[in-house]
């Protein structure tokens, strides 16, 4: 043993120094510790209570004392001393070096408890590597961490084999699990326990004193003690005890602050969870969004929340919850959905918004964005469903009508021909001619209907384009009128065709347009009323006019009459025979020949449809292919003039 002079004095000085160091570190390292702890997400530290730990360690100490025998007396004293100060959450218990029995029985621990497999493995690792090793041990009272320093007979062995051969024993230290984890082996720490022995070893017996003569660092803090002067016995305990206490106190303070922060974080997580649940509870913006915003406002104690939908200047205010107060802070959070900005959440608060609250608000903004998106999709889906249902109904109606419209003329044709055949000899010449006329008229009507249907189902754009040619408009118009006249026998058909008017158009187009306009005029005006057909010149080109004296087109129908299958909303319209595709076909042909359709209609007066064709292919009409609505600008005059 090295002779020491003024041992007690030196001990005193060093103790004081170390005490200062320990306490100093305890104070200063709080901040970095908190950062570390938070980063590591250690909840265990925050959860375990101080009393819990103290009790566990005391029990562990007792066990170890019994195991280590007389050398534990000092430990007992220290334990008794510390028990009066409950704030000290841990203590270091270091017994004398434990050495295997000289008889070479092998390195066995004295008691079953300490002979835990983990501990034995740690002991072997310590010996083999020459580095302190930690192991968690389950004692009846709980889990505790045991740190083992290996002790060797001689100076640092050079390899594992030598170390094994030279192994003398271990120095044990007991540390409460939480403190150990928090201070030393945090889950995300980059390295394992950094209890290292630095500096040269003294040659000699390798006693505890010698071991602790070296400096050692304890991660993660810069707790370095350089060149300890070793005292024997109890002094060792105090030194190490203070160092570990410093750690513990630091850890404890960190724990308290962390506990506070974690409680706040948990509260905010709960709020976000609740917000998410509320946002999921419905798809109706007017019901669910206010609930979500109110929850958020109350959860964070904000004064006002505003949600705007849409981007930039087009943003529309969707909802405002709460009142704005003068002063305070405002925050504007964009609402993102699939990388697009779909709106903005404006937050107004009496108090400044902390960074944690801001994070919560961002998450809430995501929830709100998601909700707005879903609710918009739902609304669109409902509209689409309604439209499809409507279309379905119209289609069914259409099929029924088409069936009827095709079968009626066919039945009449077949029936009359059969009758002609069976009663030919009994019929007069006039009767026969009349019968043939009937057949012929219905054949014409059927042809027109079939043409309409084919027009309707053909995609005009892919079919050969129509080539307009110049023609005297009155000629094809006159032909068509005469051909279809019998079909409109219930009306009085008046014709006024200017023979000088030339149009650049197509005869097929004229037939399709005129037959459909005539058909509508007949359907929607009373029997015996007049239908006028005229051809005249207008500024831009040639006009074909069809006018009826029926009920006119109801205002609510105006936008719809050119839709497929639509036949009108009034009762009179409902009962008429018609497929509803006529005006759709007219529109298609307008586009193909570059003509414009003007519609004039008034209740009680009638309807006038004017088709304006270009006179010359080089001179297109304005609004070609369009349907435009005009007022009756002048008193009704004869159509043909």
């Amino acid at each position, binding site marked *: 043993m090295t002779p020491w002079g003024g041992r007690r004095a030196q001990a005193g000085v060093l103790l004081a120094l170390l005490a200062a160091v320990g306490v100093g570190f305890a104070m200063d390292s709080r901040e970095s510790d908190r950062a570390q702890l938070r980063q590591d997400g250690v909840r265990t530290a925050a959860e375990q209570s101080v009393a819990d730990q103290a009790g566990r360690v005391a029990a562990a100490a007792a066990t170890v004392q019994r195991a280590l025998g007389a050398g534990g007396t000092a430990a007992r004293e220290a334990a008794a001393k510390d028990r009066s100060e409950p704030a000290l959450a841990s203590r270091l218990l270091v017994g004398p070096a434990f050495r295997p029995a000289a008889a070479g029985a092998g390195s066995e621990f004295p008691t079953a408890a300490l002979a835990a497999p983990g501990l034995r493995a740690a002991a072997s690792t310590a010996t083999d590597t020459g580095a302190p090793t930690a192991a968690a041990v389950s004692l009846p009272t709980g889990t505790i961490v045991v740190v083992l320093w290996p002790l060797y007979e001689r100076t640092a062995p050079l390899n594992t084999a030598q170390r094994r051969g030279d192994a003398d024993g271990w120095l044990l230290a007991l540390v409460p699990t939480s403190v150990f984890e928090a201070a030393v082996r945090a889950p995300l720490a980059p390295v394992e326990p950094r209890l290292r022995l630095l500096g040269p070893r003294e040659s000699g017996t390798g006693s505890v004193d010698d071991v602790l003569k070296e400096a050692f660092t304890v991660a993660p803090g810069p707790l370095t003690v350089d060149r300890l002067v070793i005292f024997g016995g109890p002094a060792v305990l105090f030194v190490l005890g203070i160092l570990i206490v410093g750690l513990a106190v630091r850890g404890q303070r960190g724990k308290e602050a962390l506990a506070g922060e974690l409680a706040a974080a948990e509260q905010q997580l709960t709020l976000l969870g609740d917000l998410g649940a509320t946002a999921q509870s419905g798809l109706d913006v007017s019901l669910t969004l206010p609930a979500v915003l109110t929850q958020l406002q109350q959860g964070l104690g904000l004064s006002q929340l505003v949600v705007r939908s849409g981007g930039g200047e087009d943003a529309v205010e969707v909802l405002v919850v709460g009142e704005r107060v003068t002063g305070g802070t405002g925050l504007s959070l964009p609402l993102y959905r699939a990388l697009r900005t779909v709106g903005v959440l404006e937050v107004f608060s009496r108090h400044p918004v902390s960074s944690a609250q801001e994070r919560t608000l961002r998450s809430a903004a995501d929830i709100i964005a998601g909700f707005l998106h879903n609710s918009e999709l739902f609304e669109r889906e409902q509209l689409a469903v309604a439209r499809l249902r409507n279309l379905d109904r119209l289609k069914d109606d259409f099929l*029924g*009508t088409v069936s*009827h419209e095709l079968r009626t003329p066919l*039945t009449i044709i077949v*029936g*009359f021909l059969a009758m002609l055949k069976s009663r030919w000899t009994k019929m007069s010449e006039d009767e026969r001619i009349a019968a043939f006329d009937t057949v012929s008229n219905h054949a014409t009507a059927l042809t027109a209907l079939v043409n309409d249907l084919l027009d309707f189902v053909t995609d005009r754009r892919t079919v050969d384009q129509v080539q307009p040619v110049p023609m005297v408009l009155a000629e094809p118009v006159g032909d068509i009128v005469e051909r279809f006249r019998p079909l409109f026998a219930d009306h009085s058909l008046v014709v006024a065709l200017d023979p000088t008017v030339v149009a650049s158009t197509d005869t097929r187009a004229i037939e399709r347009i005129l037959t459909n306009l005539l058909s509508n005029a007949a359907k929607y005006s009373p029997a015996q009323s007049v239908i006028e057909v005229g051809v005249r010149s207008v500024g831009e080109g040639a006009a074909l006019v069809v006018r009826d004296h029926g009920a006119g087109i109801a205002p609510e129908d105006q936008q719809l009459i050119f839709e497929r299958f639509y036949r009108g909303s009034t009762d009179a319209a409902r*009962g008429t025979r018609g497929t509803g595709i006529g005006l759709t076909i007219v529109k298609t042909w307008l586009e193909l020949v570059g003509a414009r359709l003007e519609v004039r209609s008034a209740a009680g007066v009638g309807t006038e449809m004017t088709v304006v064709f270009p006179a010359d292919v080089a001179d297109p009409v304005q609004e070609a292919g369009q349907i435009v609505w005009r007022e009756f600008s002048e008193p009704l005059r004869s159509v043909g003039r």
Partner: protein
Amino acid sequence: MEQRTVRADPTDVRVMVVDDEHDMRTLLRMLIDEANHGLRVTDEAADGEEALDRWHRERPTVIVLDNRMPGMTGLELAAQIRQLDPDQRIVLFTAYADPATVGSAAQLGVSCLAKTEIDKVPDSIWAAARS
């Protein structure tokens, strides 16, 4: 087309034809009279209103009506008449004998005949008259 005059026999089954298409009424009249199995067309109507009007004035034994007409459909007319007289025999003459129409007709106690089977009209009328 002039009507062939048919000898009126009080035991004849009187038929009213309702259809908005004039030539169809003519055809039905000719078919029924031609068959001359004791069937006689006594009345014609072009729509439901006219049909009701005539029906009130003189009850036919059997009514043959088209389903698709302006204003009231054939089924609607049949329902109205049935309410006023549950025993009135009615034949629905329809272009499209879809299950819905046939079903509704059956519920009203009205028999159906497709336009493609127009030659069976007299038989249909007899069947209705005897039921």
